[in-house]
Protein backbone atom coordinates (compact mmCIF):
# COMPACT_ATOMS: atom_id res chain seq x y z
CA UNK A 1 0.00 0.00 0.00
CA UNK A 2 2.78 2.37 0.97
CA UNK A 3 4.66 1.44 -2.17
CA UNK A 4 1.65 2.06 -4.40
CA UNK A 5 0.91 5.44 -2.84
CA UNK A 6 4.51 6.56 -3.07
CA UNK A 7 4.82 5.40 -6.67
CA UNK A 8 1.66 7.23 -7.64
CA UNK A 9 2.83 10.39 -5.91
CA UNK A 10 6.19 10.28 -7.68
CA UNK A 11 4.58 9.45 -11.01
CA UNK A 12 2.09 12.31 -10.77
CA UNK A 13 4.77 14.75 -9.67
CA UNK A 14 7.04 13.88 -12.55
CA UNK A 15 4.38 13.42 -15.19
CA UNK A 16 3.11 16.88 -14.33
CA UNK A 17 6.51 18.38 -14.76
CA UNK A 18 6.92 16.76 -18.17
CA UNK A 19 4.77 19.50 -19.64
CA UNK A 20 7.60 21.97 -19.65
CA UNK A 21 11.28 21.81 -18.94
CA UNK A 22 14.33 23.79 -17.95
CA UNK A 23 17.27 21.61 -17.12
CA UNK A 24 19.58 22.32 -14.22
CA UNK A 25 21.25 18.99 -14.02
CA UNK A 26 22.96 17.24 -11.17
CA UNK A 27 26.11 16.01 -12.83
CA UNK A 28 27.06 13.92 -9.79
CA UNK A 29 25.20 11.44 -7.67
CA UNK A 30 26.47 12.41 -4.23
CA UNK A 31 28.13 15.79 -4.69
CA UNK A 32 26.64 19.02 -5.92
CA UNK A 33 27.79 22.17 -7.66
CA UNK A 34 27.49 25.78 -6.61
CA UNK A 35 24.64 26.83 -8.88
CA UNK A 36 21.16 27.73 -7.73
CA UNK A 37 17.88 27.92 -9.59
CA UNK A 38 16.87 31.18 -11.27
CA UNK A 39 14.17 33.15 -9.48
CA UNK A 40 10.78 31.55 -10.05
CA UNK A 41 12.21 28.36 -11.58
CA UNK A 42 10.96 25.02 -10.30
CA UNK A 43 12.66 21.67 -10.28
CA UNK A 44 11.68 18.13 -9.34
CA UNK A 45 13.99 15.27 -8.54
CA UNK A 46 13.67 11.61 -7.85
CA UNK A 47 16.61 9.78 -6.28
CA UNK A 48 16.85 6.06 -5.70
CA UNK A 49 19.84 4.65 -3.83
CA UNK A 50 20.48 0.94 -3.49
CA UNK A 51 22.78 -0.05 -0.61
CA UNK A 52 24.09 -3.58 -0.50
CA UNK A 53 26.50 -5.94 1.24
CA UNK A 54 27.63 -5.71 4.83
CA UNK A 55 30.03 -8.60 4.48
CA UNK A 56 27.76 -11.07 6.26
CA UNK A 57 24.25 -12.38 5.73
CA UNK A 58 22.06 -10.55 3.25
CA UNK A 59 21.56 -6.80 3.20
CA UNK A 60 19.70 -4.83 0.55
CA UNK A 61 18.12 -1.41 1.19
CA UNK A 62 16.61 1.20 -1.09
CA UNK A 63 16.36 4.88 -0.21
CA UNK A 64 13.98 7.00 -2.25
CA UNK A 65 13.78 10.79 -2.23
CA UNK A 66 11.24 12.92 -4.10
CA UNK A 67 12.30 16.55 -3.98
CA UNK A 68 10.83 19.84 -5.15
CA UNK A 69 12.97 22.96 -5.50
CA UNK A 70 12.02 26.55 -6.14
CA UNK A 71 14.12 29.59 -6.98
CA UNK A 72 13.22 32.11 -4.29
CA UNK A 73 15.69 34.70 -5.59
CA UNK A 74 18.44 34.47 -8.24
CA UNK A 75 20.79 33.41 -5.44
CA UNK A 76 18.52 31.51 -3.02
CA UNK A 77 16.82 28.18 -3.69
CA UNK A 78 14.40 26.48 -1.33
CA UNK A 79 13.60 22.77 -1.38
CA UNK A 80 11.34 20.26 0.33
CA UNK A 81 11.71 16.50 0.07
CA UNK A 82 9.81 13.38 1.01
CA UNK A 83 11.84 10.30 1.83
CA UNK A 84 11.11 6.61 1.78
CA UNK A 85 12.99 3.38 2.25
CA UNK A 86 12.69 -0.37 1.88
CA UNK A 87 14.88 -3.04 3.41
CA UNK A 88 15.57 -6.73 3.14
CA UNK A 89 18.10 -8.06 5.61
CA UNK A 90 18.61 -11.44 7.19
CA UNK A 91 21.43 -13.33 8.80
CA UNK A 92 22.90 -10.14 10.32
CA UNK A 93 22.83 -9.30 14.03
CA UNK A 94 25.04 -6.44 15.18
CA UNK A 95 24.79 -5.55 18.83
CA UNK A 96 23.48 -2.02 19.28
CA UNK A 97 22.73 -1.55 15.57
CA UNK A 98 20.95 -4.39 13.77
CA UNK A 99 18.76 -6.47 16.11
CA UNK A 100 17.76 -9.05 13.52
CA UNK A 101 16.01 -9.82 10.27
CA UNK A 102 13.82 -7.15 8.74
CA UNK A 103 11.98 -6.97 5.48
CA UNK A 104 9.44 -4.54 4.11
CA UNK A 105 8.64 -2.68 0.91
CA UNK A 106 8.76 1.04 0.41
CA UNK A 107 7.66 3.03 3.45
CA UNK A 108 7.68 6.75 4.05
CA UNK A 109 10.65 7.42 6.30
CA UNK A 110 11.07 11.18 6.65
CA UNK A 111 11.12 14.65 5.15
CA UNK A 112 13.59 17.45 4.63
CA UNK A 113 13.60 21.21 4.06
CA UNK A 114 16.65 22.90 2.57
CA UNK A 115 17.94 26.33 1.56
CA UNK A 116 20.87 26.95 -0.78
CA UNK A 117 22.50 30.34 -1.18
CA UNK A 118 24.96 31.17 -3.96
CA UNK A 119 27.72 33.60 -2.98
CA UNK A 120 29.73 33.32 -6.21
CA UNK A 121 28.72 32.01 -9.62
CA UNK A 122 31.09 29.59 -11.34
CA UNK A 123 30.07 31.08 -14.68
CA UNK A 124 30.20 34.78 -13.89
CA UNK A 125 32.79 34.98 -11.12
CA UNK A 126 35.02 32.20 -12.38
CA UNK A 127 34.69 30.30 -9.10
CA UNK A 128 31.45 29.09 -7.59
CA UNK A 129 30.70 29.14 -3.89
CA UNK A 130 27.40 28.20 -2.29
CA UNK A 131 26.17 27.18 1.12
CA UNK A 132 23.29 24.98 2.21
CA UNK A 133 21.35 24.54 5.41
CA UNK A 134 19.02 21.55 5.71
CA UNK A 135 16.66 20.35 8.41
CA UNK A 136 15.68 16.70 8.21
CA UNK A 137 13.43 14.48 10.28
CA UNK A 138 13.24 10.70 9.90
CA UNK A 139 11.35 8.04 11.79
CA UNK A 140 12.98 4.92 10.33
CA UNK A 141 16.57 3.87 10.92
CA UNK A 142 18.22 3.43 7.50
CA UNK A 143 20.59 0.73 8.83
CA UNK A 144 18.35 -1.64 10.77
CA UNK A 145 15.05 -0.54 9.25
CA UNK A 146 13.59 -0.22 12.76
CA UNK A 147 11.77 2.73 14.30
CA UNK A 148 14.14 5.53 15.23
CA UNK A 149 13.35 9.25 15.38
CA UNK A 150 16.18 11.43 14.17
CA UNK A 151 16.32 15.17 13.64
CA UNK A 152 19.34 16.53 11.77
CA UNK A 153 20.65 19.95 10.90
CA UNK A 154 23.22 20.00 8.12
CA UNK A 155 25.40 22.90 7.08
CA UNK A 156 27.11 22.47 3.73
CA UNK A 157 29.59 24.30 1.53
CA UNK A 158 29.74 23.72 -2.23
CA UNK A 159 32.57 24.93 -4.45
CA UNK A 160 32.79 24.68 -8.22
CA UNK A 161 35.41 25.52 -10.81
CA UNK A 162 34.86 25.02 -14.53
CA UNK A 163 37.53 24.48 -17.15
CA UNK A 164 37.77 24.06 -20.94
CA UNK A 165 34.85 26.31 -21.90
CA UNK A 166 32.78 24.89 -19.02
CA UNK A 167 33.03 21.36 -20.42
CA UNK A 168 35.19 20.09 -17.54
CA UNK A 169 33.56 20.70 -14.19
CA UNK A 170 35.13 20.19 -10.79
CA UNK A 171 33.34 20.43 -7.46
CA UNK A 172 34.26 20.16 -3.82
CA UNK A 173 31.78 19.77 -0.96
CA UNK A 174 32.02 19.95 2.81
CA UNK A 175 29.23 19.31 5.28
CA UNK A 176 28.63 19.11 9.01
CA UNK A 177 25.54 17.25 10.17
CA UNK A 178 24.34 17.37 13.78
CA UNK A 179 21.78 14.74 14.73
CA UNK A 180 19.53 14.16 17.73
CA UNK A 181 18.24 10.58 17.73
CA UNK A 182 15.93 8.47 19.86
CA UNK A 183 15.24 4.79 19.17
CA UNK A 184 11.90 3.21 19.80
CA UNK A 185 11.93 0.21 22.21
CA UNK A 186 11.83 -3.27 20.64
CA UNK A 187 9.95 -6.00 22.50
CA UNK A 188 11.57 -9.14 21.11
CA UNK A 189 15.26 -8.34 21.26
CA UNK A 190 17.78 -11.20 21.33
CA UNK A 191 18.97 -12.02 24.88
CA UNK A 192 21.55 -9.52 26.08
CA UNK A 193 21.14 -7.33 22.99
CA UNK A 194 21.98 -3.69 23.57
CA UNK A 195 19.37 -1.37 22.05
CA UNK A 196 19.65 1.92 23.92
CA UNK A 197 16.58 4.12 23.86
CA UNK A 198 18.20 7.12 25.48
CA UNK A 199 18.66 10.20 23.27
CA UNK A 200 21.90 10.22 21.27
CA UNK A 201 23.81 13.10 19.77
CA UNK A 202 25.94 12.59 16.67
CA UNK A 203 28.09 14.82 14.52
CA UNK A 204 28.95 13.72 10.99
CA UNK A 205 31.61 15.40 8.86
CA UNK A 206 31.80 14.89 5.10
CA UNK A 207 34.30 16.18 2.55
CA UNK A 208 34.39 15.23 -1.10
CA UNK A 209 35.45 16.17 -4.60
CA UNK A 210 34.35 15.31 -8.10
CA UNK A 211 35.33 15.85 -11.69
CA UNK A 212 33.18 15.35 -14.77
CA UNK A 213 33.69 16.00 -18.47
CA UNK A 214 31.33 16.39 -21.37
CA UNK A 215 32.53 13.51 -23.54
CA UNK A 216 29.84 14.00 -26.18
CA UNK A 217 26.77 16.17 -26.62
CA UNK A 218 24.41 15.43 -23.72
CA UNK A 219 26.83 13.03 -22.01
CA UNK A 220 29.01 13.74 -18.99
CA UNK A 221 31.28 11.10 -17.54
CA UNK A 222 33.09 11.67 -14.28
CA UNK A 223 34.09 10.39 -10.90
CA UNK A 224 33.43 11.44 -7.35
CA UNK A 225 34.85 10.61 -3.97
CA UNK A 226 34.13 11.57 -0.40
CA UNK A 227 35.33 10.94 3.11
CA UNK A 228 32.83 10.72 5.94
CA UNK A 229 33.25 10.32 9.66
CA UNK A 230 30.88 10.37 12.61
CA UNK A 231 31.41 11.22 16.25
CA UNK A 232 28.99 10.10 18.91
CA UNK A 233 28.66 10.99 22.59
CA UNK A 234 29.58 7.59 24.06
CA UNK A 235 32.25 6.18 21.73
CA UNK A 236 33.91 9.24 20.27
CA UNK A 237 34.76 8.57 16.62
CA UNK A 238 32.24 5.92 15.75
CA UNK A 239 33.15 5.44 12.12
CA UNK A 240 35.01 6.75 9.09
CA UNK A 241 34.97 5.70 5.46
CA UNK A 242 36.26 6.65 2.03
CA UNK A 243 33.98 6.16 -0.94
CA UNK A 244 34.58 6.64 -4.65
CA UNK A 245 33.04 5.73 -7.95
CA UNK A 246 32.16 6.75 -11.48
CA UNK A 247 29.18 8.87 -12.51
CA UNK A 248 27.45 8.98 -15.86
CA UNK A 249 25.04 11.75 -16.72
CA UNK A 250 22.73 12.05 -19.70
CA UNK A 251 20.40 14.90 -20.53
CA UNK A 252 17.59 14.63 -23.03
CA UNK A 253 15.47 17.57 -24.08
CA UNK A 254 13.01 17.23 -21.26
CA UNK A 255 14.76 15.22 -18.57
CA UNK A 256 18.12 14.15 -17.28
CA UNK A 257 19.45 11.15 -15.41
CA UNK A 258 22.59 10.50 -13.40
CA UNK A 259 23.84 7.08 -12.40
CA UNK A 260 26.60 6.66 -9.84
CA UNK A 261 28.23 3.51 -8.56
CA UNK A 262 29.96 4.08 -5.27
CA UNK A 263 32.38 1.67 -3.66
CA UNK A 264 33.65 1.91 -0.11
CA UNK A 265 37.43 1.96 -0.47
CA UNK A 266 38.54 2.10 3.14
CA UNK A 267 36.83 2.44 6.47
CA UNK A 268 37.30 2.11 10.17
CA UNK A 269 35.90 2.73 13.58
CA UNK A 270 33.55 0.23 15.13
CA UNK A 271 33.37 -3.28 13.72
CA UNK A 272 31.01 -6.13 14.41
CA UNK A 273 32.25 -9.43 15.94
CA UNK A 274 33.57 -11.72 13.23
CA UNK A 275 33.88 -9.00 10.61
CA UNK A 276 36.38 -10.19 8.02
CA UNK A 277 36.66 -6.97 5.99
CA UNK A 278 38.39 -5.11 8.79
CA UNK A 279 39.54 -2.30 6.51
CA UNK A 280 35.93 -1.24 5.91
CA UNK A 281 33.19 0.19 8.08
CA UNK A 282 30.19 -2.08 7.60
CA UNK A 283 27.92 -1.30 10.51
CA UNK A 284 26.36 1.92 9.24
CA UNK A 285 27.77 1.65 5.71
CA UNK A 286 27.73 -1.03 3.03
CA UNK A 287 30.39 -2.15 0.62
CA UNK A 288 28.69 -0.45 -2.28
CA UNK A 289 25.86 1.79 -3.33
CA UNK A 290 24.23 2.61 -6.64
CA UNK A 291 22.35 5.88 -6.99
CA UNK A 292 19.99 6.78 -9.79
CA UNK A 293 18.74 10.36 -10.09
CA UNK A 294 16.12 11.67 -12.42
CA UNK A 295 15.34 15.34 -12.71
CA UNK A 296 12.99 17.78 -14.38
CA UNK A 297 13.06 21.53 -14.49
CA UNK A 298 10.00 23.54 -15.25
Amino acid at each position, binding site marked *: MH*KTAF*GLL*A*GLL*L*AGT*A*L*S*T*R*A*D*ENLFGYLSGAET*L*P*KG*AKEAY*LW*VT*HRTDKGVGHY*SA*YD*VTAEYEYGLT*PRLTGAVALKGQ*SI*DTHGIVIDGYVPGDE*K*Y*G*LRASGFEAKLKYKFL*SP*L*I*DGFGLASTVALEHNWLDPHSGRDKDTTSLTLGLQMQKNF*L*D*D*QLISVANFAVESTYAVREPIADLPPGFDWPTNPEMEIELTGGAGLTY*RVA*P*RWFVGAETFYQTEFETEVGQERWSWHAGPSVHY*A*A*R*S*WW*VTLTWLRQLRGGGETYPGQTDTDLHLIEKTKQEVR*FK*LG*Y*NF
Partner: protein
Amino acid sequence: MNDTFHWWTVPAIVIPAAVAAPAYAVQYFTVAQAQRALFPSAAAFVSRPVALSAARKDFIQDYSGVRVRAERQPVWRAEADGQLLGWFVLDEVYGKHEFITYAVALDPQGGVRGIEILDYRETHGGEVRDKRWQAQFEGKHYGDRLRLGDTVQNISGATLSCKHITEGVRRVLALYETALKEGAD
Protein backbone atom coordinates in the same frame (compact mmCIF):
# COMPACT_ATOMS: atom_id res chain seq x y z
CA MET B 1 4.36 -12.15 -1.34
CA ASN B 2 7.66 -10.38 -1.89
CA ASP B 3 6.95 -6.68 -1.46
CA THR B 4 10.56 -5.49 -1.61
CA PHE B 5 10.72 -2.32 -3.66
CA HIS B 6 12.48 -2.56 -6.99
CA TRP B 7 14.16 0.73 -7.79
CA TRP B 8 13.84 0.31 -11.53
CA THR B 9 10.05 0.44 -11.39
CA VAL B 10 10.15 4.22 -10.94
CA PRO B 11 12.28 5.09 -13.99
CA ALA B 12 10.44 2.40 -15.93
CA ILE B 13 7.25 4.38 -15.37
CA VAL B 14 8.64 7.86 -15.58
CA ILE B 15 11.07 7.75 -18.50
CA PRO B 16 8.46 6.80 -21.13
CA ALA B 17 6.36 9.74 -19.87
CA ALA B 18 9.37 11.98 -20.17
CA VAL B 19 10.16 10.82 -23.68
CA ALA B 20 6.59 11.65 -24.66
CA ALA B 21 7.00 15.22 -23.40
CA PRO B 22 6.76 18.00 -26.00
CA ALA B 23 9.87 18.50 -28.13
CA TYR B 24 11.51 21.86 -28.76
CA ALA B 25 11.79 23.77 -31.98
CA VAL B 26 15.49 24.10 -32.59
CA GLN B 27 16.06 26.08 -35.76
CA TYR B 28 15.04 29.72 -35.79
CA PHE B 29 16.89 30.83 -38.92
CA THR B 30 18.66 29.26 -41.83
CA VAL B 31 21.94 30.91 -42.79
CA ALA B 32 20.24 32.73 -45.69
CA GLN B 33 17.43 33.97 -43.43
CA ALA B 34 19.90 35.21 -40.82
CA GLN B 35 21.88 37.01 -43.52
CA ARG B 36 18.73 38.77 -44.71
CA ALA B 37 17.74 39.67 -41.17
CA LEU B 38 21.10 41.19 -40.34
CA PHE B 39 21.78 42.85 -43.72
CA PRO B 40 18.34 43.58 -45.20
CA SER B 41 19.76 45.92 -47.85
CA ALA B 42 22.46 43.55 -49.08
CA ALA B 43 22.28 42.44 -52.70
CA ALA B 44 24.78 39.63 -52.38
CA PHE B 45 26.58 37.54 -49.80
CA VAL B 46 29.98 36.39 -51.01
CA SER B 47 31.47 33.46 -49.17
CA ARG B 48 34.88 34.36 -47.77
CA PRO B 49 35.82 31.61 -45.29
CA VAL B 50 38.84 32.38 -43.16
CA ALA B 51 41.54 29.78 -42.71
CA LEU B 52 42.54 29.70 -39.07
CA SER B 53 46.27 29.25 -38.87
CA ALA B 54 47.94 28.46 -35.59
CA ALA B 55 48.98 32.09 -35.23
CA ARG B 56 45.43 33.31 -35.80
CA LYS B 57 44.05 30.76 -33.35
CA ASP B 58 46.52 31.90 -30.72
CA PHE B 59 45.60 35.53 -31.30
CA ILE B 60 41.87 34.83 -31.09
CA GLN B 61 42.19 32.57 -28.05
CA ASP B 62 44.38 35.03 -26.19
CA TYR B 63 41.87 37.81 -26.70
CA SER B 64 38.62 35.93 -26.26
CA GLY B 65 39.67 33.46 -23.58
CA VAL B 66 37.93 30.59 -25.37
CA ARG B 67 39.24 27.83 -27.57
CA VAL B 68 39.13 27.93 -31.36
CA ARG B 69 38.21 24.45 -32.49
CA ALA B 70 37.55 24.88 -36.23
CA GLU B 71 40.18 25.09 -38.94
CA ARG B 72 38.06 27.41 -41.07
CA GLN B 73 35.62 30.10 -40.00
CA PRO B 74 32.56 30.54 -42.24
CA VAL B 75 32.39 34.21 -43.23
CA TRP B 76 30.38 36.05 -45.88
CA ARG B 77 30.98 39.50 -47.28
CA ALA B 78 27.68 41.43 -47.46
CA GLU B 79 27.57 43.71 -50.49
CA ALA B 80 25.26 46.17 -52.22
CA ASP B 81 26.16 47.78 -55.54
CA GLY B 82 29.60 46.28 -55.17
CA GLN B 83 30.17 48.10 -51.91
CA LEU B 84 31.05 46.37 -48.64
CA LEU B 85 28.19 46.59 -46.15
CA GLY B 86 29.85 44.39 -43.60
CA TRP B 87 30.73 40.85 -42.60
CA PHE B 88 28.47 37.98 -41.67
CA VAL B 89 30.30 35.53 -39.39
CA LEU B 90 28.76 32.16 -38.58
CA ASP B 91 29.95 30.57 -35.36
CA GLU B 92 29.15 27.98 -32.71
CA VAL B 93 29.58 28.02 -28.95
CA TYR B 94 28.93 25.38 -26.35
CA GLY B 95 25.58 25.24 -24.68
CA LYS B 96 25.29 23.01 -21.67
CA HIS B 97 24.86 19.94 -23.84
CA GLU B 98 24.71 20.99 -27.48
CA PHE B 99 26.24 23.66 -29.64
CA ILE B 100 24.48 26.97 -30.09
CA THR B 101 24.76 28.19 -33.67
CA TYR B 102 24.70 31.96 -34.00
CA ALA B 103 25.81 34.69 -36.38
CA VAL B 104 27.41 38.06 -35.79
CA ALA B 105 27.06 40.90 -38.29
CA LEU B 106 29.96 43.37 -38.35
CA ASP B 107 30.05 46.72 -40.10
CA PRO B 108 33.03 47.49 -42.36
CA GLN B 109 34.88 49.01 -39.39
CA GLY B 110 34.41 45.85 -37.30
CA GLY B 111 31.62 47.11 -35.06
CA VAL B 112 28.83 44.72 -34.12
CA ARG B 113 25.65 45.42 -36.14
CA GLY B 114 23.64 42.61 -34.64
CA ILE B 115 23.37 38.98 -33.57
CA GLU B 116 21.03 36.19 -34.58
CA ILE B 117 20.62 32.78 -32.97
CA LEU B 118 20.15 30.21 -35.71
CA ASP B 119 19.99 26.91 -33.85
CA TYR B 120 19.32 26.62 -30.16
CA ARG B 121 19.15 23.02 -29.04
CA GLU B 122 19.28 23.47 -25.28
CA THR B 123 16.30 22.87 -23.04
CA HIS B 124 16.66 26.26 -21.38
CA GLY B 125 18.49 29.54 -21.73
CA GLY B 126 16.71 30.53 -24.94
CA GLU B 127 16.35 34.04 -23.52
CA VAL B 128 19.57 34.90 -25.34
CA ARG B 129 17.33 35.44 -28.38
CA ASP B 130 15.95 38.51 -26.63
CA LYS B 131 16.79 41.53 -28.81
CA ARG B 132 17.19 43.76 -25.76
CA TRP B 133 19.90 41.46 -24.45
CA GLN B 134 21.59 41.21 -27.84
CA ALA B 135 21.50 45.01 -28.20
CA GLN B 136 24.22 45.23 -25.54
CA PHE B 137 26.72 44.11 -28.17
CA GLU B 138 25.77 46.61 -30.85
CA GLY B 139 28.55 49.03 -31.72
CA LYS B 140 31.16 47.05 -29.78
CA HIS B 141 34.60 46.75 -31.36
CA TYR B 142 37.74 44.78 -30.81
CA GLY B 143 39.31 46.13 -27.62
CA ASP B 144 36.01 47.05 -25.96
CA ARG B 145 35.40 45.33 -22.66
CA LEU B 146 32.82 42.56 -23.01
CA ARG B 147 32.39 40.63 -19.77
CA LEU B 148 29.27 38.92 -18.48
CA GLY B 149 28.13 40.40 -15.21
CA ASP B 150 30.23 43.49 -15.87
CA THR B 151 29.61 45.24 -19.18
CA VAL B 152 27.15 42.58 -20.38
CA GLN B 153 24.11 42.00 -18.23
CA ASN B 154 23.30 38.41 -17.33
CA ILE B 155 19.90 36.79 -17.75
CA SER B 156 19.03 34.69 -14.71
CA GLY B 157 18.37 31.15 -15.88
CA ALA B 158 20.39 31.59 -19.06
CA THR B 159 23.80 32.27 -17.54
CA LEU B 160 25.71 29.59 -19.43
CA SER B 161 24.31 30.68 -22.79
CA CYS B 162 24.90 34.37 -21.99
CA LYS B 163 28.48 33.64 -21.00
CA HIS B 164 29.33 31.56 -24.02
CA ILE B 165 27.72 33.92 -26.52
CA THR B 166 29.56 36.84 -24.92
CA GLU B 167 32.79 34.91 -25.29
CA GLY B 168 31.80 34.01 -28.84
CA VAL B 169 31.30 37.65 -29.78
CA ARG B 170 34.74 38.41 -28.37
CA ARG B 171 36.08 35.61 -30.54
CA VAL B 172 34.40 37.08 -33.66
CA LEU B 173 35.79 40.54 -32.89
CA ALA B 174 39.27 39.05 -32.60
CA LEU B 175 38.71 37.23 -35.89
CA TYR B 176 37.94 40.56 -37.54
CA GLU B 177 41.06 42.11 -36.07
CA THR B 178 43.33 39.35 -37.27
CA ALA B 179 41.71 38.34 -40.57
CA LEU B 180 39.02 40.70 -41.89
CA LYS B 181 40.23 44.16 -41.03
CA GLU B 182 41.71 46.09 -43.92
CA GLY B 183 45.39 45.41 -43.95
CA ALA B 184 45.08 42.26 -41.84
CA ASP B 185 47.29 39.48 -43.14
